């Protein structure tokens, strides 16, 4: 049974992730009054990348790209197997760390600055991600997804502020505007493509596919707040992702200074307020 679940996850997740990326691109295009690419364009892109020559600056860059992919897959599988949420977050960290190390291994100032910015992004979102998990713990008494799913309340009702904070850092995690400064879907930023600037061909394809897995994981995470009702959860995920696209299109790219301030001060503040409230509600 587990083997089947794992296989299904590994095979289905990139399809779903790719389709989400395709829908994202179409909606983004429409928001900019463009026709936009076909729905399957992300797949065409990746297939094209896979067919290209792998050109690199250093020997082990591609290694990190593959590591990034593999750890993202492992993290998603762990999520689907309903393991401990904190552990899943740490595995996710491992995935991001490989991306950062890949960027730092190349001797390019642009990718290295991108790596530092990504690290700052980790600094910004990690406390909030962990806080949301801890908030869930306060409500359900467990860090394990299998236990969280058993609860018959909707977590969102207890953790609305944490959900807001979570969607806020989701923008950082998905590297969408206004927080797309470590790398972006467009080369038009001061770091060109930041983290991924020295990647090309199949290794870049690996990173793209890893993004799909990551997107699926993060959206499932968002769905966890509505886990007791599947339809509500799917609707919430859709609304959540639409909001991300909307924000992507109505905001300028901010700087990491502003991001750090906004996540650590108001972001963590509302997270803490929510945590204190559920702590008092369930533990005092």
């Amino acid at each position, binding site marked *: 049974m587990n083997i089947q679940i794992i296989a299904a996850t590994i095979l289905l997740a990139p399809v779903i992730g790719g389709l989400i990326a395709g829908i994202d691109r179409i909606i983004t295009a429409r928001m900019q009054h463009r026709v936009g690419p076909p729905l399957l364009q992300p797949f065409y892109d990746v297939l094209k990348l896979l067919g290209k*020559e*792998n*050109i690199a600056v250093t*020997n082990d860059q591609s290694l990190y790209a*593959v590591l990034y992919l593999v750890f993202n897959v492992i993290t998603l599988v762990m999520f689907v197997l309903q393991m401990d949420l904190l552990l899943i977050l740490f595995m996710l*960290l491992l995935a991001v760390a490989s991306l950062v190390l890949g960027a730092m291994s190349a001797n390019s100032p642009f990718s290295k600055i991108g790596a530092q910015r990504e*690290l700052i992004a980790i600094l910004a979102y*990690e406390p909030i991600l962990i806080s949301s998990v801890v908030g869930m713990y306060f409500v359900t008494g467990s860090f394990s997804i299998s236990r969280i799913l058993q609860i018959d309340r909707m977590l969102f009702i207890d953790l609305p502020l944490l959900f807001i904070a979570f969607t806020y850092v989701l923008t950082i995690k998905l590297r969408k505007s206004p927080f797309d400064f470590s790398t972006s879907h467009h080369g038009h930023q001061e770091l060109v493509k930041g983290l991924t600037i020295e990647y090309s061909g199949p290794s870049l394809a690996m990173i793209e596919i890893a993004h799909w897995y990551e997107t699926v994981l993060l959206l499932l995470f968002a769905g966890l707040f509505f886990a007791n009702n599947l339809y509500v959860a799917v609707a919430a995920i859709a609304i959540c992702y639409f909001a991300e696209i909307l924000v992507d299109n109505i905001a300028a790219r901010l700087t990491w200074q502003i991001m750090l301030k906004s996540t650590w001060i108001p972001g963590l503040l509302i997270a803490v307020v929510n945590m204190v409230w559920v*702590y008092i509600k369930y533990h005092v």
Partner: protein
Amino acid sequence: MVSYLLLAMILLPMLLAAVVLAVTDRRFRNVCVLMVSGILMVSALLIIKTGAAFVEIHGTLAEVLDYVIFAADVAISLIALYFGFKFRSIVLAVLSIAQLIPLVLFHIQINFAGVEKAFHIDHLSMIMLLLVNIIGPLIAVYALHYMQEHEHHQHLTASRQHYFFATILLFLGAMNGLVMANNINWIHFFWEVTTLCSFLLIGHDQTEAALANAKRALIINFFGGVAFILGIMFIYSRVHTIAVHEILTYSDVSVLLIPMALLVLAGFTKSAQIPFQSWLLGAMVAPTPVSALLHSSTMVKAGIYLIFRFAPVFLGTWLADMSALIGAFTFAAAALLAISQTNAKRILAYSTISNLGLMITLICILDIYAIYAAALLIVLHGVSKALLFLCVGTIEQAIGSRDLEDMDGIRQRLPLTAFLATFGAISMLLPPFGVLITKWIGIEVTASLPPVMFLIILGSACTVFFWAKFIGKLLSHNPEAEKIETLFLTYQGPLAIIAVLALITSIFMIEFSNMFIAPFISSAYLGSSDQTIPNVLISDFAGFYPPAFFAVTAIALLLVFILYNWLKPKRYVQPFLSGENSGHNQFYSLSDGKFNAGFRNYYFSSVLNEHKLTYLMNSIASALLIVLFGVILR
């Protein structure tokens, strides 16, 4: 049998220290050090095989020992007094007198009485013994080659290595004594010996900075020593015993709260918790094996050991909660400060302080998993940190700098060392290695103390930042770098062994926990019957079973290598430098000709000003300490 092992582990290193001091021949010294190292490792393993035990010393021998140790303790205070006058430091002089007078008065009060069960070897001692007697000797062996090169760079007329190795051996002997002694007076004596040794080792290079930092270490640790001796006097006045195992059986916490607070304070100074962290940072001027020794297996772990030893007495009290808070605060603050450091050794030092804070937090949380995590962290941190320090030392000797920014292309220049250092850093940061798991447990168990948990969350985010910078630098590629690594068995050998140990301890975390920590928990926390052990044996940490995770990681890595071989770049290009490359890392500028592009990690020097932040952190931590004592003394 056990008493011979005790002799081998405590007295032999001390005796050989005297011999090494007297005979300055290098070859003889090397043989001595290697021999002691071997003996220590073997004896530690043997003593663990024997199992938990008390060692009793009776009659004249016991009396003589009591007097000798008293005399030696007084002598240490006198030495400190001497240095107080030599350095013209009133604080040091006052502290040494403040230690001397209670010491003498107390011994007169108890009439120089001893404890029959002079040594107590339980599972906590065993964990410490493993750490001290495996990592410590490996560092000593490493130092043989290191000190040779170190003195070569110093251009000394006469070698001072005999002082160095004598102190190291004395240090190891004292640590062994410290973790096994059952007489709290003896613990205090060994405690003071480690203080003295660290003072000598930090000041070893005799430079101005070294002496100033050695003095600071002595002052801060003597402050801890004073707290310690006052704590002992308090304990005696309350419960009339100086035997540790008897103190631990005292169930009425409120009676012992004040002395325990004093002992915790002593532990804080030794374990360099904020606001006492400055001595450990200053200790970075010492030769790197010293840093490794101080940070991994000895000295700072002595403070942790003391708090861990007495934690069963005060767990669940205000003292424990406040200590956990101060520990967590140290964890977060030191991690934040580590971000601003460019000096690789100082980064490691802050990381140590931070991890010690986490250990103290875990020790002070009333949760069985917290105890597991605390004990695991002591070992895992000790191993990884020893590896990291020794690697940085090797790099420093090879490139002549300990600045992280000078370590570009270290991968090509010192492949083995860089690999081991990266391994060490990864074992401190990433799953499935144990240190991260203890952090995870830290968050899970502190759910009952939200502020503590919050600090741990913030701290782990900062930790990621500075470790990732560190690893990234070690792994960064520089095509122009040339290999300069020279291999020696006694130089990189210990590094490799420690790296293997780090891997093994992480893989066999569960087995280790069941073998050492579970019995310790059942004896120290659940009353001392062996039948309770099955209750505290664990099969995994909330779903985390290290061998499985290592297997998954290994399979993933295998998969990665297969994919990687398929993906291996066929063609190499120069990095993007806005279209103006004139070399791999060089660009052409119309105004200046060829120019090297550079990159420096972020240190946030304008925001994270170390000086100002330290001041702030010290103030907050001092305030917390004052609150702690204020409430207890009420």
